[in-house]
C-alpha cells in the first residue's frame, strides 16, 4: 500500500483504504472513492491531483491524496 500522492500521472490503481476524519472520508465516498474502486491519476501539480474515479474527474488536495491508500 502507498498513498495516492505517490502515484504517477496515467497510472490506474485500486483503492485499498481511505483514512482521515470521518466527515471527509464520507464525502469522498459519496464522490465515488470507495474501497475496491479504481482510481486513475490524470495530472498532478505541487501535490494537488486530478484523478479519475468512476468516470468523473475529481480534484483533491495533497493532504487528501496522502490519506487515500492504493
Amino acid at each position: 500500500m502507498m498513498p495516492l500522492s505517490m502515484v504517477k500521472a496515467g497510472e490506474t490503481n485500486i483503492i485499498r483504504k481511505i483514512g482521515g476524519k470521518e466527515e471527509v472520508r464520507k464525502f469522498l465516498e459519496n464522490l465515488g472513492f470507495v474501497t475496491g474502486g479504481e482510481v486513475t491519476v490524470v495530472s498532478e501539480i505541487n501535490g494537488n491531483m486530478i484523478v479519475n474515479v468512476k468516470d468523473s474527474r475529481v480534484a483533491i488536495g495533497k493532504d487528501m491524496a496522502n490519506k487515500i491508500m492504493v
Partner: protein
Amino acid sequence: MSIKIALAGNPNCGKTTLFNALTGSNQFVGNWPGVTVEKKEGKLKGHSDVTIMDLPGIYSLSPYTLEEVVARNYLVGERPDAILNIVDGTNIERNLYLSTQLMELGIPVIMAVNMMDILEKNGDKIHLDKLSEKLGCPVVAISALKGTGIKEAADKAVDLAKKAATVTIAHSFADSVEAVISAVEAKIGSDVADEQKRFFAIKLIEKDDKIKDMMKSVPDVSAEVQKLEDEFDDDTESIITNERYQYISSIIHDCCTKSKKSEGGSVSDKIDKVVTNRWAALPIFAAVMFLVYYISVTTVGSWATDWANDGVFGDGWHLFGIGTSAYNDAADEYAPYDAEIKGFLEAAEEKAPDVTKEFTEVYDDEDAQEADVDAAIKAFTSNSAIKSLTTEVNIAGEDEDEELVNVNVATFETALEQEEPDPADYGVWVPGIPVLIGNGLDAIGCADWLSGLILDGIVAGVGAVLGFVPQMLVLFIFLAFLESCGYMARVAFIMDRIFRKFGLSGKSFIPMLIGSGCGVPGVMASRTIENDRDRKMTIMTTTFIPCGAKLPIIALIAGAFFDNAGWVAWSAYFVGIAAIICSGIILKKTKMFAGEPAPFVMELPAYHMPTVENVLRSMWERGWSFIKKAGTIILLSTIVLWFLMNFGWADGSFGMLEAEQLDSSILAAIGSVIAPIFAPLGWGNWKMAVAAITGLIAKENVVATFGILFGFAEVAEDGAEIWGQLGASIVPIAAYGFLVFNLLCAPCFAAMGAIKREMNNTKWFWFAIGYQTVLAYIVAFCIYQIGSVFTGNIHVVGLIIALLFVAGFIYLLVRPYKESDTLKVDMKKKAFAK
C-alpha cells in the same frame, strides 16, 4: 391542483441547463432560508400549475455539505409530488449513487439520462429499459443542451405526479443488511409516513445526527447498528455506501455497453493534461486572465463605462458613433480660437481685472441674452487698456508641436465670432438622461430644490452606479463562459495551493483581479466560489485592491505631497495586497471562520461548449440582481447624502445651499463633529473628514469635494489646482495615512450594495464594512504615529498605542492555529420545521 416537481442531480450534470429549458424565462431566484445557497423555482412551460424546483447539485443525501442538507430538508419536509432525477450518462455509475437514495424517499422518481448525444458519439450505449427495470422507475433519454427529449421527460413527470403512484423500491442490499433495515423500520413510530420509513431507517442506521431533528420520536437502534458493525467490521455508513455501489456495479454491466474507444481517456482528460500541466498551467491561466481583464476592464469595458457615464448619464452621445468624427474635426478646428480667447482673457485679467471680471461674468453666463453679451463684448473691447493689449499664446498645432501666436483685440474679436461646435449638431445625437430629465423638469416649472434633488441627487448618484452596468455585463459574459465551459473549476485547482495559505480559495484570484478595475463586479465575481467561508473572506478583502476610482485620490496625494513620486502609486497596490494577505491570515484564525471545510476536494466537470443562451442568461441574472440593488439601497443612500451636502444654515437661515457653500452644510457640521475622531490620524480637519464621507458615493468624489471645499467649482481629475492649499493644510505623513484610510475603508455605496447582495446576511455585511473601516483606521493611525517619529514630531501616547497595535497585529498574524478539517454544517432547524 398545483404540482411540485423537484429537479435533483449531481453537480455539473446539466441540471441548470435542463431547468432553463423547462421553465424558460418564468423563474424566481432567491436563497434558501438562512443560507447562501441559491434557490431557483420556475413554472413549467405550458403548465402554469406545475412548479419546478431546482435543487442544488448534490452527490448524496448525507448531511456533509450545506447543499445536501438544503436538498434533503426540502425533499423530506416539503414532499414534492415527483422527483425528476437528471443523470449524467457519461458518468452514470457515480450518478446512480444519488438515484438509489432518491428512490428511498417514497416520492415517485423519473430518471432523465442526460448527454445521450455525447454517449452516442463515444459509441457507448445505455439500455434504458434495463435501467428502468433494475431501478424501478421510468427512464428517458435527453440532451439538455440540444433540447431533445425534454418535453417527454417533463410530461412523464407530470403524469407520475398526478397519478400519485405508490413507489416500489427495486434495488436491494445484502440480506443481512436488509434484515436490519426491516427491523429498524418496524421500530419507527407512526409520525413517519410508511413510504418514508425506509429512508429514515437507513439514515438512523448510518448514525446520521441531523435526521433525528426531523423525527418526533427517535427509536434506539444502537443494537442493530452494533450487530451490523460487528458483522462487517466497518462502520454502518461505509457499509451502506458500499452496498449501494455494489448494487450499482451489479446492474451496470447489464445496463451499459461501453465501446473500447473511450478507454484511452476522454477529450476532457486530454485537455486537462495540457491546461493543468505542472508547467503550462500558470502561463495558460495568466494568458486567459489577461485576456479577460484586457477586454472587460481596459478596452471594451472602459469604452462601455465611458459611454454609460458620459453619454447615457452625461450630456449625451452619438448614436452608433455617427457624427463623432465630424464633431471631433470641428472641435479641433475650434481649439486654437478657444486657446486665443482664454490666453487673451488671462492677460487682460492681469492688466485690468475689474473690466475683465465684468465681461467674463456676462460671457460665462449661459442664460445671458444675446444682446447683453454683445454689449458686454463691445464694452470690453472698447476699453482703452484692453485695446492696447497684446499677448503671446501657445497654440498646440498638429503633431504635438506648439506655436506662439500674438493675440490682440482684433484677433480676440475674430475668435469670439467663431461658433463653438456643439456635438448635438452633428450626426444622430441622443441626449443623456440628466439632460432629458433636466429639460423635462424645466418644462413643468419644477422647484429648484426638487430638480436639484432629482438631478444632482438621484440621477447623478444612481447614474454613477448604473454607469458600471455595461462593463459588468461584459465581464459577466466572460465569467459565465469560463464557468460553464468548465475552466473555472480548473482555476480553483491551479491557484488553490497559493491562496490556501492565507485562507482564500483558488478562485479568489478572479474577484481580486477584476476588483482592480472596479470593486462592484469584483465582489459579484465571488459568486463562483462555492465554499461559503472562502466566499465571505473574498468578499471582505476584494475591495482592498485599489480600484479605478481610487486612482484620482492616489494622484491627488502623490501630487500635492510627494512631488508626484511613483512610489506612492505602487505602494498603494502593495498596501492593498498586504491588507488582503494579512486579513486572510488573521481572519482564518478567528472563530467566525474556523470550523468549516478546509480540505480541497472538488469535481471537475467535463469541458464543453456552452450555449449562447445559457451564457447570456447567467450574465443577465447577475447584472439584474445588481441593478435591483442600485434601485434600492444605493438610491436611498445617495438621497440622504445629497440632502446632507446641499442643505444647511447659511446667511442666518436653514435652506438649500449653493455648491460653493458646502462648508455650511449639514454634512460640514457632521464633519466637524467627527473630525476629532481622525485627529489621531493627523488629519482631524473637518474638510478631510467630509471628503472621506463623500467618497462613499464614489471614491473619485474625494477629489471633487476637496475642490469645492478649497473654493474651486471644478477641478481636474487629479485636483492639480488644489495641490498647494491641500499641501499646506496637513503634513505629508498624515496625507499618506489619509490615502491608506481611503483605500482600505468601507468602499463606495455601489460596492457596499454588492457586498450586501453577496453576503446575503445583514450581520455579515456589517461585519465586513466594520472590519474594513477599523482596519483602515488602525493602519492609518500606525502610519501617522510611527511615521511622525522620523519627522521628529513624536506624540508619546500615540506612539505607544501605535506600537501596541503593531505588536497585537503581529501576534494575530503568527499565533498558532490548527487547520480545521471538519466539515461542519450548521443549519437552523427552523428552516425546515416551519
